[in-house]
């Protein structure tokens, strides 16, 4: 494969995101001989710090350094990237909130194929990449052919490739700022205003040792009572998955997941939670995970240590009674 591979680097406060080294692993799976160039945008000293960190892992680090990118707006960056990237390149972007904002439109502007949320690559043949994706929140997988011969933008699911920590490159930093700014600062139709920080709830679940976490399987707001009872009996705090917050049954500060809180308990009990990767991505520190779900195929059973296949509406009240009996 003669096409150049690029990895878009997400960073914060002068440190590259965990996905940076995962992108190298993904690129090597795509093409074992690939020389992978990192592409990074930001401003000033923070950007320079990340670039210095990246040269040990990438053969080249293409940086775009501009005050207007101190907080990167995908609408601005996309138009800059089109000015610097070759049309037939393969661009890997992490499939998270920024990548999802940037990547689909980038593929159109580069006239490249778009492959979203890849979790694995299984080789390239006749210009066609065979990739693995998941559908229906991970209940089934698919093989997908993507014609990358005229270039491709591929978003890669965070955590699906093992980070390449070999630090085997001694790359160079290539300043692409002038090229990216040719014709002026683009993308003015969407103007970044501010980041509104999440409201802090009455309980900080990121500090909890034991979490009783409730999901869609609770079915009705009135049923939450049994979760409160169980948590009280166990001396646990209550967290939840996204549908419970969407329904406004619990506050956003209790949501575990990539768009919610990252928790590090000792014990995590997932009740009626299917276990989409966005949810599991918010559970760190290798807790002991207990999953109770009536669907034996729910992905949560892959993440859990111990599983019980049952309807939580039947199981929870019995469990609570037993705990209360035990405690006398």
């Amino acid at each position, binding site marked *: 494969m003669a096409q150049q591979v690029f990895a878009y680097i997400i960073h914060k406060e002068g440190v590259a995101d965990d996905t940076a080294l995962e992108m190298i692993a993904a690129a090597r799976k795509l093409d074992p001989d690939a020389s992978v160039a990192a592409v990074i945008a930001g401003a000033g000293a923070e950007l320079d710090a990340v670039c210095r960190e990246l040269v040990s892992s990438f053969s080249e680090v293409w940086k775009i350094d501009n005050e207007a990118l101190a907080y990167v707006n995908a609408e601005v960056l996309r138009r800059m990237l089109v000015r610097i990237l070759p049309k037939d390149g393969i661009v890997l972007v992490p499939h998270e909130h920024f990548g999802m904002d940037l990547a*689909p439109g980038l593929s159109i502007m580069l006239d490249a194929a778009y492959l979203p949320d890849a979790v694995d690559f299984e080789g390239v043949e006749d210009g066609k990449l*065979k990739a693995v994706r*998941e559908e229906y929140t991970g209940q089934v997988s698919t093989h997908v052919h993507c014609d990358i011969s005229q270039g491709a933008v591929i978003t890669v699911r965070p955590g699906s490739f093992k980070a390449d920590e070999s630090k085997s490159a001694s790359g160079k930093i290539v300043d692409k700022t002038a090229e990216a700014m040719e014709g002026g600062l683009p993308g003015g139709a969407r*103007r970044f205003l501010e980041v509104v920080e999440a409201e802090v709830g009455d309980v900080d679940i990121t500090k909890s040792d034991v979490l009783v976490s409730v999901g869609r399987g609770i079915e009705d707001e009135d049923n939450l009572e049994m979760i409160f009872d169980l948590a009280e009996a166990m001396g646990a705090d209550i967290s939840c998955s996204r549908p419970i917050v969407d329904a406004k049954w619990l506050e956003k*500060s209790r949501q575990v997941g990539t768009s919610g809180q990252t928790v590090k308990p000792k014990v995590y009990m997932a009740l009626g939670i299917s276990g989409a990767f966005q949810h599991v991505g918010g559970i760190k520190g290798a807790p002991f995970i207990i999953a109770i779900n009536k669907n034996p195929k729910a992905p949560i059973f892959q993440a859990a240590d*111990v599983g019980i296949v049952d309807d939580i509406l039947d199981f929870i009240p019995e469990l609570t009674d037993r705990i209360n009996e035990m405690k006398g």
Partner: protein
Amino acid sequence: MEILVCIKRAPDTSENEIEVNRDGTDIERDDLVYSVNEWDNYAVEEAIQIRDKMGGSVTVVTVGDEDDEEVIRREMAMGADHGILLSDETFKGSDGRGISAILKAEVEKKNYDLILTGAQADDGAGQVGGILAAMLDWPYASLVNFIDVIDDKKIKVGREIAGGNQEMHEIDLPCVLSIQTGINEPRYVGIRGIRKVASLEIPVHTAGDLGIAPESVGESGARTKRLDYFVPELGEGAEILEGSTEEIIDKLLEFLKAKGGIK
């Protein structure tokens, strides 16, 4: 404000276990319960709320066949003013780019101020909004969980980012937004509402009506193609506790005590 919402009919995953069919060509569809894609339903609710405040109309559109009419009717029962079905043999096998090209042709038939899509659907791709915006050369924001209409030229939007934080932007109209769940509380649609729209004629626009070259969409225009469905090889996974409920609880309590799960 003229608003177009792009919707899709999808199996309701909270009601269904999804399984691969025998030869891996599709999922087992016989017993599936279909509805409007969850994210799209939030998008339609948001469009209705904006219309009720600002005036104008809400149109829902989908690419599909006669089976997909039901989700158009459902969203019209919810309060959308118009529904359009984009349907043609040549559309079959379209990838995200093809679907977006078809939608673009429909968008260009009228002067819309705002286009909403769901942030993602059952395939988890989350691509149509961003691709459509780039094809139209309109500004775009993804994962939108807040909209405030400032005037007929611009709106303020919030994007859902990591850690429960929200990224605020001002964005010029016309624009495309992909809507995240939780932005509102979609209204309930009752049987009576569905009955009222049951006999409405849903206009169907074909490739010819839209001036779409057949080779640019469908399988021939697709650069990505699903080859098969399969059940991933799973790791060991959880130790599943078995027995009577009482026995299961006995074992669970042992684990909880050992791991510090009961204080």
